[in-house]
């Protein structure tokens, strides 16, 4: 049979890391084909090779039966491929149409033909019912619209094979449904879609067949109709994991964190608008919301990294005017959203990374002089206690994998035993096994009587971990509901800002 897209024995290595090994992928024309796998399984790497951004070390890629060699994305585009990347690849300061025509611009006598560009982009958007104002700057667009721009980019190049790398991670359920409608329309148009994800229900809902990767190898290949979620999970992880969090009922105590009337930013639409939150000792308060609705700004304002107006009290003490270090001193621990960009420094040693935020502690420095033996000692203890896989405390953390790096951050922040723990996307980009462990630790913190403020874009995580749930939408707390009563559907509507329907 003639495959629309086929790879034979594709292998890709990054130094010691083998991202793909002997991958055989077979995709029929006009189907939606899922590529599944845990974090780091090699999905993005495989897609990058299909799209010409990376070159395989070994193996062949065939399109409609003909072998191809891509040296750049341009070659792939020329062969009818289009890709929507896991991390959006947009030019913030340019307009929608500029983003879309970039690299394939309509020109007249050497000049950019603006009118033709706008017209063709707008026409395309209309045809696939992708509503977007083509003259707006991307900077001003919401995540959902940005994704439409990404899809339009591929369609503008008349992509016959469209690769969508984890397209739903940043969408509300409603936006996701809209995307699925587009995908179906494209399929009916005769196009082939490669759909990368690790969300099972999406695979079951939209795809025709599925290929599962584990540690760079294909472990399963089947028609979706014939497979079961259990089989896919096992193929992905090599074992069966439960994603349910085991936790007992909460016993909330005194108020630890009280935020009142917090506003961040100015103008008619501030990033955080008049938010009030209370977190008690011994409970986990989860903030649900689609990324970009002010959660990061809220957390940064509480942590002191961003100016804001309003009252923030920690165990009754007003900390709104305190600096970052003083807030930490007052009892705040903080696992930041991005461990590599915020939580660690690649060039720092493990001991140095574990010291950050505690360098003023009497046990670790005196009169501004570091107590180096004590610092090393503590680092060794934390490495051992948290099972961080690193050669020594003097090794640089830049070489650690995502899961290990996250362990470093968590070890450091929990060592505080601070009354308030802020955990922002604590399991993002961490694989399934590690997720279980991290969840267990957060619950343990709660049970030890600490107040936990959790922020997550992953609905299952918020639902599974929290005792109370706040939904954030466009900078406001839209609703508060006990976790026991919340459902995924209701949460999804709230995250999309649809209070009426959710009620």
């Amino acid at each position, binding site marked *: 049979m003639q495959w629309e897209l086929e790879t034979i024995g594709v292998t890709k290595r990054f130094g010691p890391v083998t991202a793909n090994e002997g991958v055989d992928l077979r995709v029929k024309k006009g189907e939606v084909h899922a590529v599944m796998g845990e974090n780091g399984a090699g999905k993005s790497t495989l897609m*990058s090779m299909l799209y010409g*951004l*990376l*070159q395989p070390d070994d193996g062949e890629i065939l399109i409609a039966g003909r072998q191809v060699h891509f*040296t*750049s994305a341009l070659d792939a585009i020329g062969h009818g491929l289009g890709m929507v990347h896991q991390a959006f690849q947009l030019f913030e300061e340019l307009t929608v149409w500029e983003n879309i025509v970039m690299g394939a611009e309509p020109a007249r006598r050497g000049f950019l033909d603006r009118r033709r560009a706008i017209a063709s982009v707008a026409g395309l958007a209309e045809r696939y019912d992708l509503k977007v104002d083509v003259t707006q700057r991307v900077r001003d667009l919401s995540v959902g619209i940005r994704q439409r721009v990404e899809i339009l980019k591929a369609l503008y190049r008349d992509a016959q094979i469209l690769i969508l790398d984890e397209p739903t991670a940043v969408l509300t359920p409603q936006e996701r449904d809209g995307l699925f409608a587009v995908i179906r329309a494209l399929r009916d148009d005769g196009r082939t879609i490669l759909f990368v994800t690790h969300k099972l229900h999406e695979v079951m809902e939209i795809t025709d067949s599925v290929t599962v990767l584990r540690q760079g190898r294909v472990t399963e290949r089947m028609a979706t109709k014939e497979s079961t979620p259990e089989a896919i999970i096992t193929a992905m992880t090599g074992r069966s994991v439960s994603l349910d969090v085991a936790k007992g009922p909460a016993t909330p105590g005194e108020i630890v964190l009280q935020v009142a009337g917090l506003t961040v930013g100015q103008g008619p639409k501030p990033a955080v608008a008049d938010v009030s939150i209370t977190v008690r000792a011994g409970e986990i308060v989860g903030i649900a919301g689609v990324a970009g609705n002010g959660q990061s700004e809220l957390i940064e304002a509480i*942590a002191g*990294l961003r100016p804001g107006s309003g009252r923030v009290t920690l165990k009754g003490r007003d900390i709104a005017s305190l*600096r*970052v*270090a*003083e*807030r*930490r001193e007052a009892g705040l621990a*903080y696992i*930041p959203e991005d461990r590599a*960009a*915020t*939580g*660690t*420094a*690649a*060039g*720092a040693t493990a001991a*140095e990374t574990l*010291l*950050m*935020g505690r*360098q*003023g502690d009497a046990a670790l*420095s005196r009169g*501004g*002089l*570091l107590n*180096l033996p004590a610092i090393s000692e503590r680092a060794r203890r934390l490495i051992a206690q948290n099972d961080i896989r690193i050669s020594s405390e003097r090794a640089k953390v830049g070489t650690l994998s995502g899961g290990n790096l996250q362990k470093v951050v968590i070890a450091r922040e929990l060592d505080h035993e601070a009354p308030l723990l802020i955990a922002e996307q604590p399991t993002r980009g961490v694989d399934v096994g590690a997720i279980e462990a991290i969840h267990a630790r957060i619950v343990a913190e709660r049970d030890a009587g600490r107040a936990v403020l959790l922020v997550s874009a992953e609905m299952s995580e918020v639902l599974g971990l929290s005792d109370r749930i706040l939904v954030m939408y466009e900078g406001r707390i839209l609703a508060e509901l006990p976790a026991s009563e919340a459902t995924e559907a209701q949460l999804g509507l709230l995250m999309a800002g649809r209070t009426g329907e959710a009620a």
Partner: protein
Amino acid sequence: MERLKSLRPGPVPLAILSGLVIGALMLLVSGDNPLVAYREIVEGAFAPRNWRNTLSWAIPLVGMSLAAAIPLRGGMVNLGGDGQIVIGGFVAAVVPIYLADAVPLPGFLLAAIAILCAMLASGLWAALAALGETRLGIPMLISSLLLSYPAIGLTSWATGFPLRDTSTGLTQTRPVPPGAELPELFGPVTMGLVLLTIVVAAVIYVDRRTVPGYELRMRGLNRRFAEYGGVRTERQALGAMFASGAIAGLVGAIVVLEVHHRFQNGALVSPSYTWSGLMAALLAGGNPARAVLAGFFFAALQTGGFAMQREIQVPRVLSMVLQAIIILFVSLRYGVGGGRGPKDRP
């Protein structure tokens, strides 16, 4: 300047070797014998009778390397060394001259006050650039550089007019009062060397053993990480620039009080200590101990270069070319042997 975080010690010896090879090729092309030229450089720098020359050249150069290394350690660049060294030198000359007129003080006290004032003045001047970045968002690279021009202009005017020593034809101040000069100690060891050694030791100690040193290093590696950990990066920028400027001021004071005994217009700028120092600090990736070594290396290279020009008429600017090539190779080191990543991704 977040991207400077990628400065890491690399195959510096390889870079030096490459520089020497290219230098040798240039010498061959112009019909000189590279071996002879390099021997002259080495002898010119290290033969017993030249030791003093090398040291007296190394003191300001190493000082300026250290001054450049401190901000670099925190991922910042101070291009205003010229203005800072000039202010230091100027203050170090003017303070004892006029202080001695006002109150009779012993010479060593005059010198001490002069040096402290010089460090303070230069430190504040440099901190102004940091203020420009933290308060106004003018990149320090630019504000520090631009601040040099008024500093040089003002001191040059002051030495040309109100404070000029009218008994000579030069634009220079009167000599500092007797006793306020820094004494020569013994052999090649001078008071300036002693002062600089103390400062070098202090900077290395701060870098390795203290909280501010740790915080500055972390900032250099990842500024967001430092902020997240409670480091007050704006105040830190002021502090780092103050320290950098103060060391530049000390260098100016040492040259004035030890070598010229007065402030001469242009004497602190024309040798390009600032740029050589910056090169050395870059070569060292901001590490103060390595910056000192690199500064000394450049000083030897330059002193040897002068000797080479005297002895065999090979232009001494060759040593400047060598330095530049070494720096270029150091900055290219990621590509050297590192293999190319996915299709030239920048």
